[in-house]
């Protein structure tokens, strides 16, 4: 008979598989490691096309694809109160103790956190990105974040820079914010058994979405200069996006068709096979809270050249990365330096160091500590919680209080219409790995 799970976590985000990205990967790997530690993890996300209902993934990870339509950039349409019934049902069915929301841009996450707080559950939030302060979109987003985080138990950020950014944007006390970096699956990202020779041709690999944020415009400036200065360098560019056209134009203009190979979108399962063909990995992001891509590259034994933005300087040791300002000339200088130190790089040794520095098991253990701290937080009454919202702003504070009061009343109404006892608990189904 299996022991009762210690903590029962509900991970909520708009971003989960089959959509692919950093947040999705993070939630999946963290959930798998928490399951191995003996906890129960359930994921809640919105439906992706035909994929609705309950699905089970590896290790018995239960995923609820709730049939809410996504509206902009894979986020659910924000209705504020309409998700209360389904969130309540899932929390009761699975006997959840901690709700863990991911990503500030996810409306489902914010709504679920709000409802969970109203119903008295412990709430943890992880912020995966950096946001600005000055433009209209950021101002509104930060206000929403202030509301959402005013009442949570603990928050997690993926780098110290991200922690500063989150604390400034949301006004959370620093003591409540923990820093737990992302990790990489070093078992999947291994160097090639035979390293490609760097004597004749040096290959620089770029794998990113070709969008403004990821510095695709910088690439357009940097690639021709490097190709001109180093005749033995070739580039491999994986990824797709709106800036793809600019890169194609650059190839045409400088006749670099044989020196710059464009692979198009690379599925994650093939990223490693692309990385191991290279010697240097180039990251030109303009903003990055953490940057898992350079971890993957370092795990495959590539020397990294990256822009010094956001949380990037915190990710790798100084001898594994060459940093540059997000300026074409500085990046060219950094690539030249990388080429000169390339002979001293040992991919196997790099990979072994990465194995020790980063692992998802470590992330899971640290997250478990955060959950324990969250569970120890005392339960606050509605009035105490409302007083926290009032400090969010002159008008905003009052609006937030009204929103929470209405949420509380709707919850009580739901309890009258469908009492807690009517919600059946779902049995825990344990999947045994070996076949009988």
């Amino acid at each position, binding site marked *: 008979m299996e022991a009762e799970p210690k903590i029962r976590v509900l991970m909520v985000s708009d971003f989960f598989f089959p959509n692919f990205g950093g947040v999705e990967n993070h939630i999946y790997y963290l959930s798998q490691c928490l399951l191995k530690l003996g906890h129960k993890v359930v994921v809640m996300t919105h439906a992706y096309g035909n994929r609705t209902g309950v699905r089970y993934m590896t290790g018995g990870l239960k995923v609820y694809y*709730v*049939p809410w339509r996504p509206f902009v950039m894979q986020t659910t349409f924000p209705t504020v109160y309409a998700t209360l019934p*389904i969130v309540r*049902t899932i929390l009761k069915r699975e006997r959840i103790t901690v709700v863990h929301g991911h990503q500030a841009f996810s409306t489902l996450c914010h709504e679920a956190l709000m409802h969970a707080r109203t119903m008295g559950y412990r709430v943890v939030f992880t912020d995966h990105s950096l946001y600005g302060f000055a433009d209209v979109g950021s101002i509104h987003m930060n206000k929403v974040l202030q509301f959402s985080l005013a009442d949570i138990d603990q928050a997690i950020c993926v780098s110290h820079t991200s922690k500063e950014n989150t604390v400034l944007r949301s006004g959370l006390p620093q003591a409540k914010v923990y820093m737990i970096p992302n990790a990489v699956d070093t078992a999947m990202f291994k160097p090639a058994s035979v390293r490609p020779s760097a004597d004749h041709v040096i290959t620089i690999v770029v794998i990113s979405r070709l969008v403004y944020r990821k510095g695709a415009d910088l690439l357009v400036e940097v690639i021709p200069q490097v190709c001109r200065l180093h005749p033995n360098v070739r580039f491999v560019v994986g990824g797709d996006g709106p800036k793809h056209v600019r890169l194609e134009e650059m190839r045409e203009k400088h006749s670099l068709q044989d020196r710059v190979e464009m692979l198009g979108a690379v599925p994650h399962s093939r990223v490693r096979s692309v990385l191991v063909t290279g010697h240097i990995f180039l990251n030109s992001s303009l903003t990055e809270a953490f940057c898992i891509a350079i971890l993957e590259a370092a795990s495959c034994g590539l020397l990294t050249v990256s822009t010094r933005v956001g949380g990037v300087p915190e990710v790798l040791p100084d001898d594994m990365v060459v940093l540059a300002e997000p300026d074409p000339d500085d990046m060219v200088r950094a690539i030249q330096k990388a080429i000169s130190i390339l002979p001293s790089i040992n991919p196997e040794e790099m990979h072994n160091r990465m194995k020790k520095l980063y692992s998802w098991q470590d992330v899971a253990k640290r997250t478990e500590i955060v959950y324990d701290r969250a569970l120890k937080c005392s339960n606050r009454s509605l009035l105490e919680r409302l007083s926290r919202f009032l400090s969010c702003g002159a008008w905003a504070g009052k609006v937030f209080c009204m929103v929470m009061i209405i949420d509380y009343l709707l919850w009580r109404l739901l309890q009258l219409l469908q009492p807690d006892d009517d919600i*059946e608990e779902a049995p*825990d*189904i344990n999947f*045994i790995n070996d076949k009988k």
Partner: protein
Amino acid sequence: MVSSSLSDKRYIYIHESGSEASRGVIDIHHVIIKGSRATSCLKGLAFFLVGLAIIIYYLPGKDNPGRTLSWSCLLSGFFVMIQSRKFVKKESVIIMPTFGIQLETQYLSGKTVSRFIPIGKILKPVLVECVTPVTCYWSLSLFLRGEEQLTLVFKELRPSMKMLVPIWKALCGVIGTDQSEMITEEHVVSG
């Protein structure tokens, strides 16, 4: 002969079968909706609306608002009466070993809709979790040969797990599915 019955806030489950010893006996499972008072209230409401419509129509004085109101009452009354035909009173599963199963739905109006599924057509009975935008509930469904969609055993009603499990086990027994193949280990939660 009633061999077991269960009751919760919304439904009553009744299991009729022969004695335990004799196999090959027809097994009947009923799920009956509670709240017959609610349904008679609905009928009463429908008649009240029709009556009110007639009275307002024949009231002396100003015509136009009265006439409009009376027509709307009449229409609402008819609407309630038509909708009440769709209200389900009982759903049953009649299991005939080696022959097939019959799914019956009995409505308030007395109409019964039934569907017979021969035993050879059933691949597996499964308990699935259905997720809607506002709730999540268990339902018993059948995988049928040649059909892409699952067939619901209870189309209108949503009985609880403790009522569905004995029916699922009975269906597994009839089809010959080994229940232990279907789930490796189950931790059943009481309450």
